[in-house]
Protein backbone atom coordinates (compact mmCIF):
# COMPACT_ATOMS: atom_id res chain seq x y z
CA UNK A 1 0.00 0.00 0.00
CA UNK A 2 2.81 2.39 0.93
CA UNK A 3 4.71 1.63 -2.27
CA UNK A 4 1.54 2.10 -4.30
CA UNK A 5 0.93 5.44 -2.55
CA UNK A 6 4.55 6.51 -3.17
CA UNK A 7 4.26 5.76 -6.87
CA UNK A 8 1.02 7.70 -7.10
CA UNK A 9 2.57 10.70 -5.38
CA UNK A 10 5.75 10.60 -7.44
CA UNK A 11 3.73 10.38 -10.62
CA UNK A 12 1.25 13.06 -9.60
CA UNK A 13 1.28 16.70 -10.74
CA UNK A 14 3.59 19.07 -8.83
CA UNK A 15 0.76 20.69 -6.85
CA UNK A 16 -0.42 17.31 -5.59
CA UNK A 17 3.14 16.38 -4.62
CA UNK A 18 3.45 19.61 -2.63
CA UNK A 19 0.13 18.97 -0.93
CA UNK A 20 1.17 15.45 0.02
CA UNK A 21 4.47 16.73 1.34
CA UNK A 22 2.69 19.29 3.49
CA UNK A 23 0.28 16.70 4.80
CA UNK A 24 3.21 14.62 5.96
CA UNK A 25 5.25 17.57 7.20
CA UNK A 26 2.67 19.21 9.48
CA UNK A 27 2.12 16.25 11.81
CA UNK A 28 5.83 15.55 11.80
CA UNK A 29 6.62 19.09 12.95
CA UNK A 30 3.76 18.97 15.45
CA UNK A 31 5.04 15.77 16.98
CA UNK A 32 8.62 16.96 16.96
CA UNK A 33 7.88 20.23 18.68
CA UNK A 34 5.47 18.67 21.13
CA UNK A 35 8.11 16.14 22.09
CA UNK A 36 10.76 18.86 22.32
CA UNK A 37 8.46 20.91 24.53
CA UNK A 38 7.66 17.93 26.71
CA UNK A 39 11.16 16.54 26.81
CA UNK A 40 12.54 16.21 30.27
CA UNK A 41 9.19 15.84 31.95
CA UNK A 42 9.13 13.43 34.84
CA UNK A 43 6.26 10.95 35.04
CA UNK A 44 4.59 13.38 37.46
CA UNK A 45 5.23 16.27 35.08
CA UNK A 46 3.62 14.32 32.28
CA UNK A 47 0.67 13.56 34.53
CA UNK A 48 0.20 17.30 35.15
CA UNK A 49 0.23 17.96 31.42
CA UNK A 50 -2.15 15.15 30.57
CA UNK A 51 -4.58 16.14 33.30
CA UNK A 52 -4.62 19.71 31.95
CA UNK A 53 -5.38 18.39 28.49
CA UNK A 54 -8.21 16.31 29.88
CA UNK A 55 -9.74 19.25 31.75
CA UNK A 56 -9.41 21.59 28.78
CA UNK A 57 -11.19 19.03 26.65
CA UNK A 58 -13.85 18.71 29.32
CA UNK A 59 -14.34 22.46 29.50
CA UNK A 60 -14.52 22.78 25.75
CA UNK A 61 -17.00 19.94 25.52
CA UNK A 62 -19.48 21.86 27.67
CA UNK A 63 -18.52 25.22 26.22
CA UNK A 64 -19.14 24.50 22.57
CA UNK A 65 -21.99 22.22 21.68
CA UNK A 66 -22.56 21.91 17.92
CA UNK A 67 -23.34 25.35 16.63
CA UNK A 68 -26.38 24.32 14.61
CA UNK A 69 -28.20 23.03 17.67
CA UNK A 70 -28.04 26.40 19.41
CA UNK A 71 -29.89 29.13 17.57
CA UNK A 72 -29.74 32.58 19.14
CA UNK A 73 -32.43 33.15 21.71
CA UNK A 74 -34.24 36.35 22.55
CA UNK A 75 -32.89 38.32 25.46
CA UNK A 76 -33.89 37.03 28.86
CA UNK A 77 -33.86 40.61 30.03
CA UNK A 78 -32.60 42.10 33.25
CA UNK A 79 -33.69 40.68 36.60
CA UNK A 80 -36.31 42.42 38.66
CA UNK A 81 -34.82 45.43 40.38
CA UNK A 82 -33.70 44.82 43.94
CA UNK A 83 -33.57 47.44 46.64
CA UNK A 84 -30.05 48.66 47.39
CA UNK A 85 -28.28 46.38 49.86
CA UNK A 86 -28.18 47.50 53.44
CA UNK A 87 -24.89 49.20 54.19
CA UNK A 88 -23.33 47.87 57.37
CA UNK A 89 -22.19 50.79 59.51
CA UNK A 90 -19.33 50.55 61.95
CA UNK A 91 -15.64 50.57 62.63
CA UNK A 92 -13.65 47.54 61.50
CA UNK A 93 -10.04 46.47 61.76
CA UNK A 94 -7.73 44.60 59.45
CA UNK A 95 -10.26 41.82 58.88
CA UNK A 96 -12.17 44.18 56.61
CA UNK A 97 -9.61 46.81 55.71
CA UNK A 98 -6.66 44.71 54.65
CA UNK A 99 -8.15 43.04 51.62
CA UNK A 100 -7.93 46.26 49.65
CA UNK A 101 -6.24 45.11 46.43
CA UNK A 102 -2.49 44.77 46.49
CA UNK A 103 -0.22 46.68 44.19
CA UNK A 104 -2.08 49.95 44.61
CA UNK A 105 0.51 51.40 46.99
CA UNK A 106 -1.65 51.30 50.13
CA UNK A 107 -1.92 49.05 53.13
CA UNK A 108 -4.95 49.69 55.31
CA UNK A 109 -5.42 48.87 58.97
CA UNK A 110 -8.94 50.05 59.66
CA UNK A 111 -12.08 51.07 57.83
CA UNK A 112 -15.13 53.00 58.96
CA UNK A 113 -18.35 52.50 57.02
CA UNK A 114 -21.32 54.82 57.22
CA UNK A 115 -24.28 56.22 55.28
CA UNK A 116 -23.72 59.95 54.80
CA UNK A 117 -26.21 62.11 52.91
CA UNK A 118 -27.73 58.97 51.39
CA UNK A 119 -24.39 57.76 50.04
CA UNK A 120 -22.55 54.67 51.20
CA UNK A 121 -19.15 55.67 52.50
CA UNK A 122 -16.10 53.63 53.47
CA UNK A 123 -13.07 55.43 54.90
CA UNK A 124 -9.89 53.37 54.90
CA UNK A 125 -6.87 54.41 56.97
CA UNK A 126 -3.35 53.08 56.84
CA UNK A 127 -0.09 53.81 55.10
CA UNK A 128 1.32 54.35 51.67
CA UNK A 129 3.70 51.58 50.65
CA UNK A 130 6.41 51.14 48.11
CA UNK A 131 7.67 47.88 46.67
CA UNK A 132 11.23 46.60 46.95
CA UNK A 133 13.23 45.01 44.15
CA UNK A 134 11.36 41.73 44.60
CA UNK A 135 7.94 43.30 44.87
CA UNK A 136 7.53 43.05 48.62
CA UNK A 137 5.53 45.86 50.22
CA UNK A 138 7.55 48.30 52.32
CA UNK A 139 5.67 50.87 54.42
CA UNK A 140 6.66 54.49 54.02
CA UNK A 141 6.42 57.32 56.54
CA UNK A 142 3.32 58.63 54.84
CA UNK A 143 -0.07 57.69 56.20
CA UNK A 144 -3.08 57.54 53.94
CA UNK A 145 -6.82 58.02 54.16
CA UNK A 146 -8.86 56.73 51.25
CA UNK A 147 -12.52 57.61 50.99
CA UNK A 148 -14.82 55.45 48.88
CA UNK A 149 -18.25 56.91 48.15
CA UNK A 150 -21.01 54.87 46.51
CA UNK A 151 -24.34 56.12 45.19
CA UNK A 152 -26.59 53.22 46.35
CA UNK A 153 -29.01 53.16 43.42
CA UNK A 154 -26.59 53.35 40.51
CA UNK A 155 -23.58 52.00 42.46
CA UNK A 156 -21.48 54.75 40.94
CA UNK A 157 -18.27 54.90 42.95
CA UNK A 158 -15.77 57.62 43.64
CA UNK A 159 -12.40 57.52 45.36
CA UNK A 160 -10.47 60.32 47.06
CA UNK A 161 -7.15 60.09 48.89
CA UNK A 162 -6.01 62.39 51.71
CA UNK A 163 -2.63 62.78 53.41
CA UNK A 164 -2.84 62.97 57.21
CA UNK A 165 -0.93 65.79 58.90
CA UNK A 166 0.80 63.24 61.14
CA UNK A 167 3.66 60.94 60.25
CA UNK A 168 3.45 57.20 59.69
CA UNK A 169 0.65 54.67 59.45
CA UNK A 170 -2.66 55.83 60.88
CA UNK A 171 -5.55 53.89 62.33
CA UNK A 172 -8.94 55.04 63.55
CA UNK A 173 -8.75 55.54 67.30
CA UNK A 174 -12.31 56.68 67.90
CA UNK A 175 -15.33 58.03 66.11
CA UNK A 176 -17.46 60.91 67.36
CA UNK A 177 -20.40 61.54 65.06
CA UNK A 178 -18.71 61.81 61.69
CA UNK A 179 -15.38 62.93 63.14
CA UNK A 180 -12.66 60.30 62.98
CA UNK A 181 -9.74 60.59 65.36
CA UNK A 182 -6.72 59.01 63.71
CA UNK A 183 -3.68 57.87 65.62
CA UNK A 184 -0.17 57.26 64.35
CA UNK A 185 2.25 54.68 65.70
CA UNK A 186 3.99 57.38 67.72
CA UNK A 187 0.75 58.38 69.42
CA UNK A 188 0.09 61.58 67.52
CA UNK A 189 -3.53 62.16 66.61
CA UNK A 190 -5.42 64.09 63.97
CA UNK A 191 -9.14 64.52 63.31
CA UNK A 192 -10.71 63.85 59.93
CA UNK A 193 -14.15 65.29 59.20
CA UNK A 194 -16.04 62.71 57.15
CA UNK A 195 -18.72 65.23 56.12
CA UNK A 196 -16.41 67.94 54.84
CA UNK A 197 -13.63 65.49 53.88
CA UNK A 198 -10.92 67.64 55.48
CA UNK A 199 -8.49 67.33 58.35
CA UNK A 200 -9.22 69.68 61.16
CA UNK A 201 -6.52 71.75 62.83
CA UNK A 202 -3.04 70.27 63.06
CA UNK A 203 -1.83 67.24 64.96
CA UNK A 204 -1.90 66.81 68.67
CA UNK A 205 -0.50 64.31 71.11
CA UNK A 206 -2.81 61.59 72.34
Amino acid at each position, binding site marked *: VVESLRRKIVGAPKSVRWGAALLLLVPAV*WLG*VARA*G*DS*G*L*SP*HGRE*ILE*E*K*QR*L*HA*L*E*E*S*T*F*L*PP*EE*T*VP*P*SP*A*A*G*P*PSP*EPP*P*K*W*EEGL*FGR*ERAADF*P*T*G*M*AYEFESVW*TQVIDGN*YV*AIYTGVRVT*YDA*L*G*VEQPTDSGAV*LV*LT*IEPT*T*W*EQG*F*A*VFDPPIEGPVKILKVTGHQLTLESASGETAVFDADALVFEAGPSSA
Partner: protein
Amino acid sequence: VTAGVAVLGGGAVVPALASHSDPKPKTTTALYLNTVNQTTLYNQGCNAGDRVDSGSDPKSSEAILAYGSPVKIDANTYGATLFSAPDAGTTQIRTASQQYAQGWYDCLSSANKSDSTVLLKVAIGVTNQYPSSWTNSTVSNHGDAWAKLVDGANGWRTPVLAAKVVFRGAGDIELGWSAPGKARAWVDGYNGHSSNWFYVNFGGAAGCQTFSSGDENSCGTSTYPSWTSSDVYYVSEEVATAIPLPQIYRTDAVQAEQWVMISQWGVDHSKPRLFFDGPLSQNGACGQVGGCSGTDNTATQAWNQMVNKMDARPQTVVDMTFSVDIKWLNP
Protein backbone atom coordinates in the same frame (compact mmCIF):
# COMPACT_ATOMS: atom_id res chain seq x y z
CA VAL B 1 10.95 31.70 15.75
CA THR B 2 10.72 30.09 19.11
CA ALA B 3 9.28 26.65 19.53
CA GLY B 4 6.96 26.06 22.41
CA VAL B 5 3.86 24.33 23.55
CA ALA B 6 0.65 26.07 24.40
CA VAL B 7 -2.74 25.12 25.68
CA LEU B 8 -5.10 26.64 23.19
CA GLY B 9 -8.79 27.29 23.30
CA GLY B 10 -9.41 24.16 21.29
CA GLY B 11 -8.63 22.21 24.39
CA ALA B 12 -5.50 20.41 23.28
CA VAL B 13 -1.90 20.96 24.15
CA VAL B 14 -0.41 21.81 20.81
CA PRO B 15 2.95 23.14 19.75
CA ALA B 16 3.29 26.87 19.59
CA LEU B 17 5.48 27.32 16.58
CA ALA B 18 4.71 30.98 16.42
CA SER B 19 6.85 33.46 18.22
CA HIS B 20 5.59 36.28 20.34
CA SER B 21 5.36 38.52 17.39
CA ASP B 22 1.70 37.49 17.56
CA PRO B 23 -0.28 40.65 18.28
CA LYS B 24 -1.75 41.27 21.69
CA PRO B 25 -5.47 40.49 21.79
CA LYS B 26 -7.87 43.22 22.74
CA THR B 27 -8.16 43.69 26.48
CA THR B 28 -10.97 42.35 28.66
CA THR B 29 -12.11 44.24 31.75
CA ALA B 30 -12.02 42.49 35.12
CA LEU B 31 -13.90 43.94 38.06
CA TYR B 32 -13.40 44.40 41.79
CA LEU B 33 -16.94 43.96 43.07
CA ASN B 34 -18.40 45.30 46.29
CA THR B 35 -21.95 44.39 45.36
CA VAL B 36 -23.93 41.32 44.36
CA ASN B 37 -26.86 43.35 43.09
CA GLN B 38 -28.16 41.33 40.18
CA THR B 39 -29.27 44.31 38.11
CA THR B 40 -25.89 45.97 38.55
CA LEU B 41 -24.08 42.82 37.44
CA TYR B 42 -26.50 42.31 34.53
CA ASN B 43 -25.80 45.85 33.38
CA GLN B 44 -22.05 45.34 33.70
CA GLY B 45 -22.32 42.22 31.57
CA CYS B 46 -24.46 44.10 29.09
CA ASN B 47 -21.80 46.81 28.84
CA ALA B 48 -19.23 44.11 28.10
CA GLY B 49 -21.48 42.64 25.40
CA ASP B 50 -21.88 46.09 23.87
CA ARG B 51 -18.10 46.44 23.82
CA VAL B 52 -17.81 43.17 21.89
CA ASP B 53 -20.31 44.53 19.37
CA SER B 54 -18.41 47.78 19.03
CA GLY B 55 -15.15 45.93 18.58
CA SER B 56 -13.43 47.39 21.63
CA ASP B 57 -13.54 44.05 23.51
CA PRO B 58 -12.23 40.84 22.00
CA LYS B 59 -14.58 38.24 20.63
CA SER B 60 -13.15 35.68 23.02
CA SER B 61 -12.70 37.12 26.48
CA GLU B 62 -12.12 36.22 30.11
CA ALA B 63 -13.78 38.42 32.72
CA ILE B 64 -12.60 38.07 36.31
CA LEU B 65 -15.18 39.08 38.90
CA ALA B 66 -13.30 39.62 42.17
CA TYR B 67 -15.51 39.55 45.27
CA GLY B 68 -13.03 40.17 48.09
CA SER B 69 -11.86 37.70 50.71
CA PRO B 70 -13.22 34.43 52.10
CA VAL B 71 -15.74 34.50 54.94
CA LYS B 72 -18.04 32.10 56.70
CA ILE B 73 -21.50 33.60 56.94
CA ASP B 74 -22.95 30.90 59.19
CA ALA B 75 -22.38 27.25 59.99
CA ASN B 76 -23.34 26.11 56.52
CA THR B 77 -22.61 29.12 54.33
CA TYR B 78 -19.32 30.36 52.96
CA GLY B 79 -18.90 33.54 50.98
CA ALA B 80 -16.79 36.62 50.40
CA THR B 81 -16.31 40.02 52.02
CA LEU B 82 -17.17 42.22 49.02
CA PHE B 83 -14.32 44.38 50.28
CA SER B 84 -15.87 47.00 52.58
CA ALA B 85 -19.47 46.08 51.77
CA PRO B 86 -21.53 43.57 53.77
CA ASP B 87 -20.51 39.95 53.23
CA ALA B 88 -22.26 37.83 50.62
CA GLY B 89 -22.83 34.08 50.51
CA THR B 90 -21.87 31.85 47.63
CA THR B 91 -25.46 31.66 46.37
CA GLN B 92 -25.66 35.44 46.05
CA ILE B 93 -22.27 35.53 44.37
CA ARG B 94 -23.23 32.77 41.96
CA THR B 95 -26.52 34.46 41.05
CA ALA B 96 -24.85 37.81 40.49
CA SER B 97 -22.17 36.25 38.30
CA GLN B 98 -24.82 34.45 36.29
CA GLN B 99 -26.54 37.77 35.67
CA TYR B 100 -23.27 39.19 34.37
CA ALA B 101 -23.18 36.38 31.81
CA GLN B 102 -26.86 36.79 30.95
CA GLY B 103 -26.42 40.54 30.43
CA TRP B 104 -23.39 39.92 28.20
CA TYR B 105 -25.36 37.50 26.04
CA ASP B 106 -28.54 39.57 25.89
CA CYS B 107 -26.72 42.65 24.68
CA LEU B 108 -24.72 40.95 21.94
CA SER B 109 -25.89 41.66 18.42
CA SER B 110 -27.65 38.86 16.59
CA ALA B 111 -24.58 38.45 14.43
CA ASN B 112 -22.33 37.99 17.45
CA LYS B 113 -24.81 35.64 19.10
CA SER B 114 -24.52 33.44 16.04
CA ASP B 115 -20.76 33.81 15.77
CA SER B 116 -19.18 30.70 17.27
CA THR B 117 -15.95 32.59 17.97
CA VAL B 118 -17.70 34.98 20.37
CA LEU B 119 -17.14 33.36 23.74
CA LEU B 120 -16.90 34.44 27.36
CA LYS B 121 -15.17 32.88 30.34
CA VAL B 122 -16.41 34.31 33.63
CA ALA B 123 -13.89 33.69 36.42
CA ILE B 124 -15.46 34.13 39.87
CA GLY B 125 -12.77 35.25 42.27
CA VAL B 126 -11.81 35.45 45.92
CA THR B 127 -8.52 36.21 47.67
CA ASN B 128 -6.43 34.01 49.96
CA GLN B 129 -6.84 36.39 52.91
CA TYR B 130 -8.56 33.94 55.23
CA PRO B 131 -9.77 34.90 58.70
CA SER B 132 -6.93 34.28 61.13
CA SER B 133 -9.02 31.80 63.12
CA TRP B 134 -9.49 29.45 60.17
CA THR B 135 -7.78 26.08 60.23
CA ASN B 136 -6.54 24.38 57.08
CA SER B 137 -9.71 22.33 57.16
CA THR B 138 -11.93 25.41 57.16
CA VAL B 139 -9.90 26.93 54.35
CA SER B 140 -10.23 23.71 52.36
CA ASN B 141 -13.98 23.70 52.94
CA HIS B 142 -14.17 27.22 51.53
CA GLY B 143 -12.31 26.02 48.45
CA ASP B 144 -14.79 23.19 48.10
CA ALA B 145 -17.70 25.62 48.50
CA TRP B 146 -16.20 27.85 45.81
CA ALA B 147 -15.95 24.90 43.43
CA LYS B 148 -19.62 24.13 44.12
CA LEU B 149 -20.43 27.75 43.35
CA VAL B 150 -18.69 27.48 39.97
CA ASP B 151 -20.28 24.11 39.30
CA GLY B 152 -23.71 25.56 40.08
CA ALA B 153 -23.17 28.48 37.72
CA ASN B 154 -22.18 26.14 34.90
CA GLY B 155 -25.18 23.95 35.65
CA TRP B 156 -27.44 26.99 35.40
CA ARG B 157 -26.47 27.62 31.78
CA THR B 158 -29.15 26.99 29.21
CA PRO B 159 -27.95 25.30 26.01
CA VAL B 160 -27.91 28.73 24.39
CA LEU B 161 -25.65 30.17 27.07
CA ALA B 162 -23.54 27.03 27.28
CA ALA B 163 -22.55 27.62 23.68
CA LYS B 164 -21.16 31.02 24.58
CA VAL B 165 -20.23 31.11 28.27
CA VAL B 166 -18.33 29.02 30.74
CA PHE B 167 -17.68 29.81 34.39
CA ARG B 168 -14.37 29.31 36.14
CA GLY B 169 -13.19 29.95 39.64
CA ALA B 170 -10.50 32.51 40.38
CA GLY B 171 -8.05 33.06 43.21
CA ASP B 172 -6.19 36.28 43.92
CA ILE B 173 -3.45 34.34 45.69
CA GLU B 174 -1.08 36.84 47.28
CA LEU B 175 2.08 35.86 49.15
CA GLY B 176 1.42 38.53 51.75
CA TRP B 177 -2.04 37.31 52.65
CA SER B 178 -1.62 33.77 53.90
CA ALA B 179 0.91 31.10 54.63
CA PRO B 180 1.52 28.75 51.69
CA GLY B 181 -0.08 25.84 53.53
CA LYS B 182 -3.39 27.70 53.73
CA ALA B 183 -3.32 28.60 50.04
CA ARG B 184 -2.51 24.99 49.19
CA ALA B 185 -5.42 23.88 51.39
CA TRP B 186 -7.80 26.16 49.48
CA VAL B 187 -6.70 25.02 46.03
CA ASP B 188 -6.77 21.39 47.18
CA GLY B 189 -10.29 21.93 48.48
CA TYR B 190 -11.32 23.50 45.19
CA ASN B 191 -9.53 20.89 43.13
CA GLY B 192 -10.95 18.04 45.18
CA HIS B 193 -14.46 18.85 44.11
CA SER B 194 -15.68 16.41 41.52
CA SER B 195 -16.74 19.08 39.03
CA ASN B 196 -13.22 19.86 37.73
CA TRP B 197 -13.85 23.43 36.54
CA PHE B 198 -10.69 25.48 36.17
CA TYR B 199 -9.74 28.36 38.41
CA VAL B 200 -7.33 31.11 37.38
CA ASN B 201 -4.71 32.30 39.82
CA PHE B 202 -4.60 36.06 39.29
CA GLY B 203 -2.26 36.68 42.18
CA GLY B 204 1.29 37.86 42.66
CA ALA B 205 4.71 36.36 43.27
CA ALA B 206 6.11 38.88 45.76
CA GLY B 207 9.61 38.08 46.92
CA CYS B 208 10.19 35.41 44.29
CA GLN B 209 13.41 35.35 42.31
CA THR B 210 14.04 37.54 39.30
CA PHE B 211 16.57 36.91 36.53
CA SER B 212 19.29 38.51 38.63
CA SER B 213 18.45 38.08 42.30
CA GLY B 214 16.84 35.73 44.78
CA ASP B 215 16.53 31.98 44.64
CA GLU B 216 13.82 29.36 44.57
CA ASN B 217 13.29 29.69 48.30
CA SER B 218 13.13 33.46 48.38
CA CYS B 219 9.41 33.88 47.69
CA GLY B 220 7.17 35.42 50.28
CA THR B 221 6.85 38.53 52.37
CA SER B 222 7.84 39.64 55.84
CA THR B 223 4.47 38.41 57.10
CA TYR B 224 4.61 35.03 55.34
CA PRO B 225 8.25 34.37 54.44
CA SER B 226 7.96 30.61 54.01
CA TRP B 227 6.64 30.68 50.44
CA THR B 228 8.86 29.02 47.84
CA SER B 229 8.81 28.75 44.05
CA SER B 230 7.41 25.27 44.56
CA ASP B 231 4.40 26.68 46.42
CA VAL B 232 3.66 29.31 43.79
CA TYR B 233 4.02 26.70 41.05
CA TYR B 234 1.69 24.36 42.92
CA VAL B 235 -1.19 26.82 43.27
CA SER B 236 -0.71 28.15 39.73
CA GLU B 237 -0.14 25.07 37.59
CA GLU B 238 0.54 21.83 39.42
CA VAL B 239 -2.99 21.51 40.72
CA ALA B 240 -5.00 20.12 37.83
CA THR B 241 -7.62 22.85 37.80
CA ALA B 242 -5.14 25.76 38.07
CA ILE B 243 -4.41 28.23 35.28
CA PRO B 244 -2.03 31.16 35.87
CA LEU B 245 -3.15 34.64 34.90
CA PRO B 246 -0.58 36.60 36.89
CA GLN B 247 -0.50 40.19 38.06
CA ILE B 248 1.93 42.09 35.86
CA TYR B 249 1.51 45.52 37.39
CA ARG B 250 5.07 46.81 37.71
CA THR B 251 6.41 49.12 35.07
CA ASP B 252 9.96 47.81 35.65
CA ALA B 253 8.92 44.30 34.54
CA VAL B 254 10.01 42.65 37.81
CA GLN B 255 6.73 40.73 38.12
CA ALA B 256 7.06 39.39 34.57
CA GLU B 257 10.55 38.15 35.44
CA GLN B 258 9.30 36.54 38.64
CA TRP B 259 6.53 34.63 36.88
CA VAL B 260 8.79 33.50 34.09
CA MET B 261 11.22 32.26 36.72
CA ILE B 262 8.41 30.30 38.40
CA SER B 263 7.78 28.72 35.02
CA GLN B 264 11.51 28.04 34.61
CA TRP B 265 11.49 26.45 38.06
CA GLY B 266 8.85 24.03 36.79
CA VAL B 267 10.92 23.16 33.73
CA ASP B 268 14.04 22.72 35.85
CA HIS B 269 12.14 20.29 38.06
CA SER B 270 10.85 18.17 35.17
CA LYS B 271 7.39 19.69 35.27
CA PRO B 272 5.50 21.58 32.56
CA ARG B 273 6.11 25.26 32.05
CA LEU B 274 3.36 27.61 33.26
CA PHE B 275 0.66 27.87 30.62
CA PHE B 276 -0.14 31.53 31.18
CA ASP B 277 -3.66 32.46 30.16
CA GLY B 278 -2.39 36.03 29.89
CA PRO B 279 -1.23 38.93 32.05
CA LEU B 280 -3.41 40.96 34.41
CA SER B 281 -2.79 44.70 34.62
CA GLN B 282 -4.52 47.19 36.93
CA ASN B 283 -4.27 50.39 34.95
CA GLY B 284 -8.03 50.98 35.22
CA ALA B 285 -8.09 50.59 39.00
CA CYS B 286 -5.06 52.83 39.40
CA GLY B 287 -6.75 55.57 37.41
CA GLN B 288 -9.79 55.34 39.68
CA VAL B 289 -7.83 55.85 42.92
CA GLY B 290 -5.66 58.65 41.66
CA GLY B 291 -2.72 56.66 40.33
CA CYS B 292 -0.24 54.09 41.61
CA SER B 293 3.32 54.98 40.89
CA GLY B 294 5.34 52.20 39.32
CA THR B 295 2.55 49.62 39.38
CA ASP B 296 0.27 50.98 36.69
CA ASN B 297 1.29 49.03 33.61
CA THR B 298 -1.09 49.38 30.73
CA ALA B 299 -2.41 46.11 29.36
CA THR B 300 -0.03 46.47 26.42
CA GLN B 301 2.96 47.00 28.69
CA ALA B 302 2.02 43.94 30.74
CA TRP B 303 1.63 41.84 27.61
CA ASN B 304 4.92 42.96 26.12
CA GLN B 305 6.81 42.41 29.37
CA MET B 306 5.59 38.83 29.56
CA VAL B 307 6.45 38.19 25.93
CA ASN B 308 9.93 39.66 26.25
CA LYS B 309 10.74 37.87 29.49
CA MET B 310 9.51 34.52 28.19
CA ASP B 311 11.62 35.01 25.09
CA ALA B 312 14.62 35.49 27.37
CA ARG B 313 13.93 32.04 28.87
CA PRO B 314 12.96 30.03 25.77
CA GLN B 315 11.89 26.95 27.70
CA THR B 316 9.07 28.99 29.21
CA VAL B 317 7.57 30.33 25.99
CA VAL B 318 3.83 29.91 25.55
CA ASP B 319 1.30 31.76 23.47
CA MET B 320 -1.05 33.62 25.78
CA THR B 321 -4.74 33.91 25.03
CA PHE B 322 -6.09 36.83 27.04
CA SER B 323 -5.15 40.34 28.06
CA VAL B 324 -7.03 41.48 31.16
CA ASP B 325 -7.11 44.81 33.01
CA ILE B 326 -8.89 45.18 36.35
CA LYS B 327 -10.80 48.11 37.78
CA TRP B 328 -13.47 48.82 40.36
CA LEU B 329 -16.99 48.41 39.14
CA ASN B 330 -18.37 51.72 37.98
CA PRO B 331 -21.49 52.03 35.88
